[in-house]
């Protein structure tokens, strides 16, 4: 057993329907470390929502174990499990607020559940609404709030019991891009200021890019790839990962270059205009066939594919130039982009 706050070992989940058995998760191993913002990305139906529900036993795994903070959740009794769940906050795509309670009363809810006195709970809830920037909407009912405000109330509610982990199930999928950014900033803030580990389920790559430090790509019930966001972004090893990192690459499949060079940027040469310098040094132009670079925490990541000149000598010179600059360069024949 590792030291991760969430350790998942050999987890499988099958759903029994009248027609057939549906395998939602298959042999998942995952380790979330304290302080991580851990992203789990996958297409809809890949099993990611089931996976996050296994982390607080809203879904019981068919096989395998889930350790939270050293405790095997599968073996806990109902009351013990309820106590552990207070250390695992959760927010949802549809916010799931109580419609008949005000924002303040919604935040009070988990405190009442935990047995805190009403007046004490109200003071704490007001502090939490301050934290998410909604102190002036305490008396509003959910229908009077916008989507972003509702998610802020939900975040305040999830934080009420001082959890160690916050699980986010497609928390920004129902929000517009601007609101998404502000919710992500709030989550990042909670992570860095309060040291709360965050697990984010999403199908949007930009959510991962914006705040996650680690990512797992889940594809047809299995983890396809898992690692630091920079590593997976610069060097996606599996088809599933490439689909998310270069979403447009798969759609076109026309052969557009014969002798090509794939240059991978991994963050350490973002200030230098490498390609322009190479062209100046070799005194020959190259055709850029594909370029997809991203800014991750202030460093450039991504890849570029250029068509090399026909002349062998010149092509070799260019490859050597790129490699001498510390970049990964790989010669590709018959590049389809």
């Amino acid at each position, binding site marked *: 057993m590792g030291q991760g706050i969430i350790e998942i070992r050999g987890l499988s989940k099958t759903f029994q329907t009248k027609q057939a058995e549906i395998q939602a998760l298959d042999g998942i191993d995952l380790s979330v470390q304290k302080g991580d913002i851990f992203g789990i990305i996958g297409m809809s139906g890949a099993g990611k929502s089931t996976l996050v529900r296994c982390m607080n036993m809203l879904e019981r795994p068919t096989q395998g174990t889930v350790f939270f903070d050293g405790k095997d959740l599968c073996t806990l009794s109902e009351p013990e499990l309820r106590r*552990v769940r207070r250390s695992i906050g959760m927010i949802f795509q549809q916010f*799931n607020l*109580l419609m*008949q309670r005000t924002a303040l009363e919604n935040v009070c809810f*988990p405190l009442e*559940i935990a047995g805190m006195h009403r007046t004490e709970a109200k003071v704490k809830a007001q502090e939490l609404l301050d934290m998410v920037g909604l102190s002036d909407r305490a008396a509003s*009912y959910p229908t009077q709030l916008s989507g972003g405000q509702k998610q802020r109330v939900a975040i305040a509610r999830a934080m009420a*019991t001082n959890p160690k982990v916050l699980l986010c199930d497609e928390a920004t999928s129902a929000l517009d891009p601007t609101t998404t950014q502000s919710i992500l900033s709030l989550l990042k803030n909670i992570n860095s200021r309060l040291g709360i580990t965050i697990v984010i389920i999403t199908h949007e790559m930009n959510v991962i890019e914006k705040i996650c430090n680690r990512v797992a790509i889940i594809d047809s019930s299995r983890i396809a790839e898992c690692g630091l966001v920079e590593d997976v972004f610069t060097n996606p090893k599996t088809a599933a990962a490439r689909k998310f990192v270069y979403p447009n690459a798969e759609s076109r499949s026309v052969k557009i270059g014969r002798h090509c060079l794939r240059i991978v940027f991994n963050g350490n040469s973002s200030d230098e205009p490498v390609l322009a310098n190479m062209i100046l040094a070799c005194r020959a132009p190259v055709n850029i066939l594909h370029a997809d670079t991203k800014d991750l925490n202030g460093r450039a990541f991504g890849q570029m594919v250029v068509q090399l000149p026909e002349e062998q000598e010149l092509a070799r010179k260019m490859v050597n130039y790129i490699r001498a600059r510390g970049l990964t360069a790989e010669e590709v024949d018959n590049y389809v982009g």
Partner: protein
Amino acid sequence: MWDESTVLMLLQGVGESLYMTLMSTLFAYIIGLPAGIFLVTSSKDGIRPRPWLFKTLDVIVNLTRSIPFLILLVAIIPFTRLITGTTIGSTATVVPLTLSAAPFVARLVESSLKEVDAGVVEAAQSMGASNSQIVWKVLLPESRPSLFIGGAIAITTILGYSAMAGFVGGGGLGTIAINYGYYRYQNGIMFVTVVLLVLIVQVFQGAGMKIAKVLDRRKQ
């Protein structure tokens, strides 16, 4: 026709009808509310699935709902006598009214509670809420407006049934309508009882809807 004794009789009729209706509604909810709650919590996708409990309740509710009220009323006369010591009058009518309305109330409660979004229940579970906390703090408060609308439907339906009991001496406006309108051909008095019944239904229906609307925080 409008002498003092007739007016007094009609007033007494209104009083008896209200007494039967309100008592039966109260007892029907004492039985039907928990039954409705268990129908929801013990169902397949409920918070505590118990197939045998669900099946039992479901069958009992369907069976009792399918017995026509007048037949039930006659069939359980021994039971009514056991409980109230009599088989005529408004107190005796409360027994069959309650038994007939309870399964109806259970279904009304069931459908109200099922309107609560499953996501909200899931959120409560994720916060460590126990099943009884989910019932008392989520299911019932969240479906409060719908429960009051159901209450208005229950009360007006029970009032209609109580009038039916007039045929067998059940008391209230129903008995007056049958004694005067049916046996004595005094259509005037029957007409007045009908108007009074309509008014009572209007009042209860209106009050129920009003309470539901005032309590609902979703559209403000």
